[in-house]
Each structure stands twice: as C-alpha cells, then as structure tokens.
C-alpha cells in the first residue's frame, strides 16, 4: 500500500461525473472546418509553413516554431488550407488570435508515418525530438511543451514521476474514460517518459471515485514497477502541488517547480499522446473532450480532432439550446464561461459544460464578509483568503503580496464555501493583474529613468569636454596674444611701431576689401605700399572667373547644338541658360577691365609719389 499524505483544506463539491461516463468514448467526426490556433501551448507561437490553397494530409506539419520554446501544429485531417488569419480562440477574454483554417476533404488520408521499432535503441534526445515533432504539450492545463518538461536541467534529477489521474474537478471524465479504455496506451506512454527520466519511483495517482480506471490500470501495469495510488476524493487533489503533497509528503517551494524537489507530474492525455508519437509516429491531432451538462441530450466523451468548433461538438452531443444557460470551458471550479461557440478545441481543452440555469444557478448577491474563516479552512495553499480579500478590495496590494497572494492557485475552494457569496477568486485575479501592471510600469519607469540618467550624464560629459576645449583655446589665444605683444614690443624697439600697428589693422581691411575691385582704391592710396600687393590676386581671380565663364559658355553652346540636332525638349532651357552665361561672361570681362584700370591708376599714383 502506497503511503499517502493529506493536504490542508479542500472541498467536496457535487461530482456530476456519472453524466458523462455512461457511454464509451465516441469519435466526434470531421466537421466542415477546422480552426487551428498557432499558439496552443506556453511559449512562442508557431509560424505557418503552408500557404493558402495548399493541400495537406492528415498528420502533416502545417506550422512550426523555429526559435524559442514551442511545438509544431499538424493537420488533424486531410484537406485544403482555406485561410490564415485571426479567429476567436479559447481564452477567458474571448480574444482572437492567428489560426490556420483547414477545409477537410473528407478522405482523412494520412501522410507517411515512420514508427520506430524500438525507442530504447535511440538516444534520449532523439525520443525527445519525436515528442517535440509530434506537437505534444501538456494536455491538462497550462500546455507546457512536453519535450522541454521532460528534460529538466542536470541539477534537477527527477526521482518521482507522477501521472496525474486524479481528475478532481467535478463533471470532467476525459481522463477517467481514457484510463478505463486506453490503459495500455497510458502505461506505455508513461514507460517512455520513465525511460527518458529514469526516476526511482513512478506512480499514477487516481481519486477513489474512479474504481474502474484504477482496475484497468492495475491490469495494464502488470510486470512493471509502476505504482497505482488510489487517493481520497477531495478537490483539488489533482492540483499539481496538492497531488505531489499527497503522494510524496513534500511541498513544492514557493515560486519553484516540482523538479526542484525531484518530482514531475504528467497528464493522462499527454501520456497517451507520447505513446502514439513514439509507437505510431502519430502527432497530436486529436484529444478526448468531455461534453456534459444537463442541457445536453447525449453527454459523453468524444475523440475530437483539434480545431473542431465547439458548436459542432455541442450539436453532436445533442445540445438543447433553449435549456443552456451557461457554457463553461473546463470544469465548474476553474473553467471559464464562453461568450461564443465559434471557438475551436485546442490541445488543452478537456471539457465543455452546457449547464442549465438550475444546474449552476447564479450566485446570490455578495454580502459582507463575516470573517467566518471557512475560506481559510478550505484553502489548499494555507493562505488567508479573507485577509487577501480585504487587501485586494482596499487596493492594498503590497499587503496582499506579503500574505503570499501569488501562491494562490485560483482553485476556487474559498469562493465555493463563502457563506457571503463573495467572488473571492475574482478579487485575487484582479489584485494579481494590478500588481503585474504595476510591476511592468515600475520596470518601464526604471528603464526610462536609467535612460534619462545616462543621457544626462552624456550631456554633462560633453559640456565638460566643450568647456575644457574652450579653456584650452582661450589659453592658446592668450599665449599667442602675449607672444605678439612681445614681438610688437621688439618691433617698437626697432622704430617700426606705427607701421606694425597699421599692418595688423590693414589685414582686417584687406579681408573686407578683397571682393570689391573698386574705385575706392584711390582712397587707399594713402595707405602703405603693402596695400597694393593684395590687389594683384584680385585680377588673377577675375581672370580665372572670366576664363571659367567662357569655357562654360562654350560647353553650353556645344550642348545646345547637340540638343538642337536631336530636337530634344530642353533646347529652350539651354538657350535661356546660355543667354544668362553670356551676361556673366560680359560682367566678368567688365570687372576684369575695371580691375586692370584701377591697378594701372594705382601704379601710376605710386610712381607719382
């Protein structure tokens, strides 16, 4: 007999499981359209590797994840890719996400499959790759890629491998029926996972309300070392942390993962998917879904192709539209209500409940908390739900976090028992969301501050450098000034003081006068002879200008002739340009003549002097 531990708290909601266990698992058939979300797992979304209009075979890979964490998506049946775009996906918010839409051709034709004869002869990494290529991610809840989970880091040796067959949520019987009817596949999938992980202990945990499943598994494990642990029915025994506590007596550290304490949990459906991937080379293209609730005529479990729309499934199960009041994806404790039936079944969809108004009545209006503490009694995480509620309501998020808000698994046991009908879980989700937003904003603010500080620092540095350079320049200038003074002093000593001063002021005037080859030169007559020298380059430059203008004019005329010969439409433009250039050449010529005259006069006056 396996030793069992108990977890604190827990509740015993009405099970309603018999609704969907009376009939064996049936095939749901092929609907008119399959909508395959590219993100059915945690991590990066897959990228389509098919185009609209492509024909695909059943099991053919149609989307893959090239980098980052993720698994591929396969065609659940043969058909044609109809479109790729945003469609509503299963999500509490009712959001749309990128999907591939497949129009089945009805032939259900498989692609080539190459099952391995003996997986034990392969490398473990090769088997993990088979699991990855089969698109397997956890089918119980979060949808974590299985091949990554099955390869924990080296320092985390898995001693205990747990297969979670607790299925503690009311209504859901998908795992129960799978264990009853496909016990061999469950066990062989578990064996593959055990071969990969080499744990010391391998145990299947089943709640004691599923005796048929336990019997079937007991038969299937004959000759293996796998244990079957039948555990007392108590919600949420199937919570990963709770099941680990029940079977090992250990607790997963807060914020950690089971591998931290050498434990790993896998889901029943995942085990079957692994078995099929390894032994049949069949990718994950269908899963068992429980369709239940009193608004269905024929509730039961169905083998459903991934991507099958919920409305098609409800039809298969005999939905009575006039009776249905609430439509839940998942169980009644943790599932979420659907706004539309136009969403597809994905790898993690385990149950759809079509409930009547009397079956799951609306809760009575919220009353004041009387601090009765029943929520704390039933909390499997040993939190103080009541205090968390007060703090969430008062938006004292820091206090809520201090009371371990983030350890809450949102199992709903507290709300279930609350005599004042307070939607406690909703308050916790709100608080968690607010804290996440605050953290994100804090991060953003921190980054902005860092950026600002870095910029400020850079600007300061530049300012300092500038200042430094300015000082250096000033220093150099001061030195030069001093040097000049010294030289001037020397010059004065040799009796040329007046001329020296005149020379320096003339330098400035020169610069101003240089462009004017003007008659003002007459006034400059009184200046020292040095003045005449700079006039010379003026004539030279004028000569140059004149020569340039002339050559330009010549080229233009040549171009004009060419243009005329070719009857191009830029003739007019060229003609205008040439006229302009003519003027320019004329002006240059005049200026040159003037300059020469002036020069001549200057020379004259100089000679007079």
């Amino acid at each position, binding site marked *: 007999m396996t030793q069992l531990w108990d977890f604190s708290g827990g509740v015993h909601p009405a099970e309603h499981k018999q609704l969907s266990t009376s009939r064996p698992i049936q095939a749901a058939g092929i609907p008119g359209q399959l909508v395959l979300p590219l993100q059915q797992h945690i991590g990066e979304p897959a990228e389509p590797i098919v185009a609209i209009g492509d024909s695909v075979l059943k099991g053919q890979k149609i989307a893959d994840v090239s980098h980052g964490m993720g698994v591929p998506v396969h065609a659940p049946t043969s058909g044609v890719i109809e479109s790729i775009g945003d469609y509503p996906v299963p999500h509490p918010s009712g959001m749309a996400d990128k999907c591939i839409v497949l129009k089945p051709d009805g032939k259900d034709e498989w692609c080539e499959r190459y099952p391995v004869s003996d997986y034990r002869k392969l490398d473990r990494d090769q088997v993990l790759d088979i699991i990855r290529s089969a698109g397997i991610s956890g089918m119980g809840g979060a949808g974590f890629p299985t091949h990554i989970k099955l390869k924990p880091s080296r320092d985390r040796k898995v001693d205990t491998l747990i297969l979670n067959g607790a299925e503690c949520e009311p209504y859901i019987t998908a795992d129960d029926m799978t264990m009853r009817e496909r016990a061999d596949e469950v066990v062989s999938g578990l064996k593959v996972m055990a071969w990969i992980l080499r744990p010391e202990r391998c145990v299947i945990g089943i709640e004691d309300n599923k005796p048929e499943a336990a019997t079937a598994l007991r038969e299937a494990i004959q000759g293996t070392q796998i244990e079957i642990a039948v555990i007392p029915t108590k919600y949420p025994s199937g919570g990963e942390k709770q099941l680990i506590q029940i079977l090992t007596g250990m607790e997963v550290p807060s914020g950690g993962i089971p591998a931290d304490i050498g434990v790993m949990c896998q889901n029943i459906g995942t085990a079957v998917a692994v078995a099929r991937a390894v032994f049949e080379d069949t990718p994950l293209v269908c899963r068992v879904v429980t369709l239940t609730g009193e608004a269905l005529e024929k509730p039961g479990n169905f083998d459903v192709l991934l991507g099958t729309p919920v409305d098609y499934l409800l039809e298969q199960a005999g939905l009575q539209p006039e009776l249905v009041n609430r439509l839940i994806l998942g169980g009644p404790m943790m599932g979420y209500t659907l706004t539309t039936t136009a969403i597809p079944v994905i790898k993690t969809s385990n149950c759809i409940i079509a409930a009547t108004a009397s079956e799951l009545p609306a809760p009575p209006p919220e*009353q004041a908390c009387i601090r*009765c503490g029943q929520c*704390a009694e039933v909390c499997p995480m040993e939190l103080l739900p009541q205090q968390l509620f007060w703090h969430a309501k008062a938006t004292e998020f820091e206090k809520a976090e201090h009371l371990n808000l983030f350890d809450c698994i949102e199992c709903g046991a507290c709300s279930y028992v609350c005599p004042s009908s307070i939607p406690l879980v909703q308050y916790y989700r709100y608080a968690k969301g607010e804290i996440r937003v605050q953290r994100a904003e804090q991060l953003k603010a921190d980054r902005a501050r860092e950026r600002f500080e870095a910029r400020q620092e850079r600007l300061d540095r530049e300012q300092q450098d500038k200042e430094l350079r300015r000082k250096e320049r000033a220093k150099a200038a001061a030195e030069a000034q001093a040097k000049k003074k010294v030289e001037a002093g020397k010059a004065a000593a040799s009796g040329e003081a007046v001329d020296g001063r005149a020379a320096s002021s003339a330098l400035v005037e020169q610069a101003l006068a240089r462009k004017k080859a003007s008659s003002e030169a007459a006034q400059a007559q009184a200046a020292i002879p040095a003045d005449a020298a700079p006039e010379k380059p003026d004539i030279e430059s004028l000569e140059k200008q004149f020569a340039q203008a002339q050559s330009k004019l010549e080229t233009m005329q040549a171009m004009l002739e060419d243009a005329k010969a070719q009857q191009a439409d830029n003739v007019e433009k060229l003609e205008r340009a040439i006229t302009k250039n003519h003027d320019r050449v004329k002006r240059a010529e005049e200026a040159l003549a003037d300059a020469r005259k002036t020069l001549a006069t200057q020379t004259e006056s100089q000679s007079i002097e």
Partner: protein
Amino acid sequence: MAFVQQSSPHAHSARPTSKVMLWVILAALPGLLAQTLFFGWGNLINVVWCIAIALASEAAILKLRSKPIVFVLKDNTAAVTGLLLGLSLPQFAPWWVSAVAVISAIVIAKQLYGGLGSNPFNPAMVGYALVLISFPVAMTTNWAEPALLWDSAPGFGDTLAAIASGQQTAIDGWTMATPLDEYKHKIASHTAAEVLAHPTFGEGIAKGWEWVNAAFLVGGLVLIGLKIITWHIPAAFLGALVAMSLAFGSNADQYAPLSLHLLAGGTMLGAFFIATDPVSAATSHQGKLIYGAGIGVLIYLIRSWGNYPDAVAFSVLLMNFAVPFIDHYTPPRTYGHHKARRGQPGRGRS
C-alpha cells in the same frame, strides 16, 4: 444564444450567512429550553424582546444609512445578537435595561462601525458590559431563583408584568444571587461547605445552571459538528480556564472550585456562542487558540481577583482589543514556504 458570464468557480455550496446564523440560533435553543425549565419564563421573554428590539434598531439604522433593509435583516445576524443578549441578561431584567443593551449593541457596536463584518467588538458583549456598568443593581438583583418551571416559579404573566413594570418589588421572593456571586462574596468569611449549603447551589454543582451549561455545550458541539465553528476557540477557552483553576484554585475555601467555573456561570454560552463570533475573533487557527486561551485566563483572573462574579463580557471585549495584534503575528505558514510571513510588508519579515 446569450450565455451567462461568470467568473469561476461556477459551483457553490449552499450555506449562506443567513443559514449559518439560523443554525447558531437553533443550536442555542436547548440552552434556552434549559433556562426556561430551571429559571422560568424570564429568558424566553427577554429573548423575544431583545430580538424584536435588535431587528427594529438595525432596520432604523439601515434606513439612516440608506442600506437595503430587508436584504440585510435577512442575514439573521441582528437576530443572533438579540438572542445572545436575551440569553445572557438576568431573567427579571427590566425591559429598558434589555433595550439599552440591545440598542447599544446594534447601533453603536455594530452599525456605527460599518455594519456586519466591520465591528471590532462583539456587539452583544458591548451591550452587556454597558448595562452591567450602568445599571449594576438591576444587573445583579434580578436573577431568578432556580426552580423547576412547574414548581414554585412565577408564571408567565407574573414574569412578563415584572419585566414590563421594571419594579423591584414585583419580583421579591423570586430572585436569588447567582452561584458564582454567592461563592465569591461568602467565601472570604465562610468555609466552602458553609457556602455551598446555600439553596442557590442545590444538590448538584449549581442548581439549574449545570443543566443550562450542559445544554449550551451540546448546542456548541452541534455547531462544531456542522463546521459552523471550529473547536479551537472553545477548546482553548475552556482549557485555559481549567488550567488556571488547577494552578491557582485548588483550595475550595479560598476560590470557587473548577466545577463551578465550568458549569455555574455563562461559561459554556461564552465559549461556544459568544467567543466564537467570527467577526470579532482572531482568524488563523493559531490565533484562535491564543484568543480563546486569553479569554479563559481573563475570566479566571476577573472572577477570582476582580470585582465581577462572572466575566465573560469583559474578557471577550479585552481579547477583541487584542485581535488585530494576534492576527498580525499568527498568519499560517503557506504551502511551499518555510515559515509564516509575520508582520507587515517590508518589516519584520521572517
């Protein structure tokens, strides 16, 4: 098809606050029956009167606060407060004493603090303590003489008249000091045997009282069985009282014996019906144990060395004061954590 949008969980257990309170009322009925059998009609009349005043004053204050009257009255918490006061007050307490107690309980102790769930003090005990201090004579001289209902006790009409008139003379000959009062005031000058010869003790431990306490004990166990209250507070309360009595009160010529402590006063009513009021009690199991034990210790201290023969009201109120402090230091250890996180965020983390 338009579907109902609801946040999980979608299933709920069907035991609303109103039903919880109804169970408290039902579980108190054996005690009321025993009181009526041994002390006459007084308690029953008080209970009805107190519940009526409680509902009326709650309705009045809800109207002033613009709150939905019927919706709140239906939670039965005002009725429970009225019931507890009716069970606690002396059988012949004049009508106005009861009215003052109930009105101060509902209006001041409960509604002025924000109504159900927001009151730091047990409303019934606030009302009781207030009249005990304000009207000490009325609260000590109006206890009925223990006698079987069909024996010599005053009839229903006489009792009703006595309560309605509030005249001390109307009940002469039907009243008697309570066993705890008698013992407390006589033991200084008498031996235990002499004190116990007083008719208030009868032939057993404390005539009538023992049955009343036994009935409240049974009712309390039913509440624990129904998971309406947990065992922590009553067990710690009674355990502390027993421990104190064993430690200090072994000499019956000096202090009341343990049997009287447990069965003569309001002990069982206090332990199972009053101290367990969740609103004003500590939250975690550890906190409840400390809270309950604190009440038990205080009751013994006040009864033995204080001025009052019974001390449930003061002890409960004193521990109500301590609840925020207790809660602050006794959070449970959360799954996956090494230690409980005590204190406030940012300080005193352990």
